[in-house]
């Protein structure tokens, strides 16, 4: 096991001769602490799989270096990095038994048979596969097969990290949570560094202690679930985390305070009046409410989602989404809304205006 460090890593896939390189991964310096549970979260095409492949050695970055416990591994091939990887689709040998599938990575490395037996039994118990060890893998359901893939990732004791690339994609939604809870439990039991790539916020936030949010080839925020919700550092994080995402609205400054729709929004930001750039406020739908004396709006749409209603309102050209309780009535005559000042964020050119730990 080891601590993994990225130093100024950048990667561009080959581009046509004479053209400037396009970076799939912009400059990243990031430490993955030994034994941590990390998630790489972002939409498809954000660079998260590129990053994962750089860790495993499937890809050598065009710039920068990768260290495992201060040892440079940038040029080392996958086989010498001792990384286990679990993919989106189950990789199992259908003709082998569950036992032989789990034993495969160990026997490959010449582990003595009694120790193989011990280890496979242990991992099978963790994954609730003990009673199926003699069964052929072919007869298992998709989630059963994916459990074997997970087991094969977990069975080796000599790995530096285990990488998961969207491992629950093929699992029926009703079974996903069981595998999620299993993975979390396993991380607590075996304490190996785990890096989990997903575009699903629930998977990322449930599994990881630290979530690395990626956007357009760059890391835009690293944080725990509470910070990502309450203090998005970038408008993309506000949009991507939470459903519906954060409202981002244009604003201007008056006497150092943000103003939207002629309403002074006391935000308590220590705003530098010299600030220049595209200024916006971010407010989550959770923190917008109806009131008697606020911003006048028109109601565009009310969606009944059972546990709450999503109300889309409009002030001039700006669309604002708000969450309203399931039993709460929607005002029909001249509705007005307000923003909870404590939950308001100010952004300049998409980045939060503040010191990161404020």
């Amino acid at each position: 096991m080891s601590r993994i460090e990225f130093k100024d890593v950048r990667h561009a896939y080959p581009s046509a001769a004479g053209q400037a390189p396009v970076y799939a991964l912009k400059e990243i310096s990031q430490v993955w602490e030994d034994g941590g549970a990390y998630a790489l979260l972002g939409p498809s095409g954000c660079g998260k799989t590129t990053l994962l492949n750089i860790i495993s050695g499937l890809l050598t970055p065009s710039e920068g270096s990768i260290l495992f416990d201060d040892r440079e591994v940038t040029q080392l091939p996958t086989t010498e990095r001792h990384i286990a990887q679990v993919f989106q689709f189950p990789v199992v040998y259908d003709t082998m038994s569950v036992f032989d599938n789990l034993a495969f990575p160990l026997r490959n490395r010449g582990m003595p048979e009694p120790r193989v037996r011990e280890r496979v039994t242990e991992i099978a118990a963790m994954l609730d596969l003990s009673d199926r060890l003699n069964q052929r893998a072919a007869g298992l359901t998709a989630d059963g097969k994916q459990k074997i893939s997970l087991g094969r990732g977990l069975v080796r004791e000599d790995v530096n990290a285990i990488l998961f690339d969207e491992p629950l994609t093929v699992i029926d939604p009703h079974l996903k949570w069981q595998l999620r809870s299993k993975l979390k439990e396993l991380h607590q039991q075996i304490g190996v560094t785990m890096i989990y790539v997903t575009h699903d916020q629930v998977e990322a936030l449930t599994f990881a202690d630290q979530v690395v949010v990626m956007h357009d080839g760059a890391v835009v925020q690293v944080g725990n679930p509470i910070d990502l919700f309450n203090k998005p550092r970038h408008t993309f994080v506000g949009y991507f985390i939470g459903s519906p995402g954060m409202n981002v609205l244009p604003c201007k400054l008056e006497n150092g305070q943000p103003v939207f729709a002629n309403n002074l929004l006391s935000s308590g930001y220590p705003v530098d009046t010299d600030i220049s750039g595209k200024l916006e406020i971010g407010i989550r739908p959770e923190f917008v409410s109806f009131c008697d004396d606020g911003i006048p709006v028109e109601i565009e749409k009310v969606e009944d989602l059972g546990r709450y209603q999503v109300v889309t309102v409009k002030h001039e050209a700006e669309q604002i989404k708000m969450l309203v309780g399931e039993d709460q009535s929607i005002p029909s005559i001249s509705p007005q809304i307000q923003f909870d000042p404590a939950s308001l964020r100010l952004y300049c050119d998409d980045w939060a205006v503040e010191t990161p730990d404020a």
Partner: protein
Amino acid sequence: MTIELRNVSLRVGAETHIYETSLSLQPGQFNILLGTTLSGKTSLMRLMAGLEKPSSGRLWANGAEVTGVAVQKRSVAMVYQAFINYPSFSVYDNIASPLKVAGLPKKEIDAKVREFANLLKLTPMLERLPNELSGGQQQRTALARALVKGADLVLLDEPLANLDYKLREELRDELPKMFADTGATVVYATSEPLEALLLGGYTATLNEGRVVQFGKTSTIYRHPETLEGARVFSDPPVNIAAIEKRGDTAYLSASVSWNVPAKLAAMPDGKYKIGLRPHHLSPNGAGVEVDGEVQIAEISGSESIVRVIVEGNNWVSETHGIHSYEFGQSTSFFFDSSRCLYFDANEMLIETQL
């Protein structure tokens, strides 16, 4: 188009895929088939399209019988979960393909392709090939091809399942709008209850080859006629427990009890079941207090879904905000008993909420 299924069933070998089903879908209506994998959504759609011949029963379209009429001879379009496009055709040619097959004049084809490309935000990508597009753009291309035909019946089989959830959010918002003006009857299959609620319209809950209930989406959600219906239309799963009713009191256990609505109080004493939606079970608040042993806390961006064992039942609490728990932690949960759905011994709803 009015689509009517009269006692339609589908058997394949010894297996029954669809049990006798009668269903009537109105023109311009957005209909959702909601159920888990293998509940029969796709089979039902294939029957509607004419891709599958029913083992019994009849199908009617606009008052004319169409049982056994091949799909090519009917005004039907279908979009699947996997993005199906012609890989060597540009987006433009992909969208144009059904019109070319129909032999429309070039000028008319061009106008239609541009109209639907615009509607689906594909105008800047018309010259690209499918593999140069993102997943969302590929699926929008497939949708445009289905829409451009102007089919009377459009069948969408989990069309958003392979997309990132943020893209799903956007397309879910756009889809009902796209069809609103076409007058087409839309049938949309999904395994996600939240998706059904977001799309609105009408929902048929499906389970193991049977239509459990059909009606307005919000009615089907709030007033499931059976426990099965409540189960199908709840994610996270609806919390279920057996209770003992004596007089006007319900007992979940010797120590947990509450007063029941008058209608249930008047019914014979004995065993009943309750269904409680996860968002009505909260770690803070008032009402009936129960002890829960936490299994896992799952976090979506703004909500926590906590799996707990309550009096031997596997329950789920869904609350706003981010709550962390340790595995095995014991903690109190609360619910307002007026939120309970009550079911009799046959798992039929006892309507106590109006």
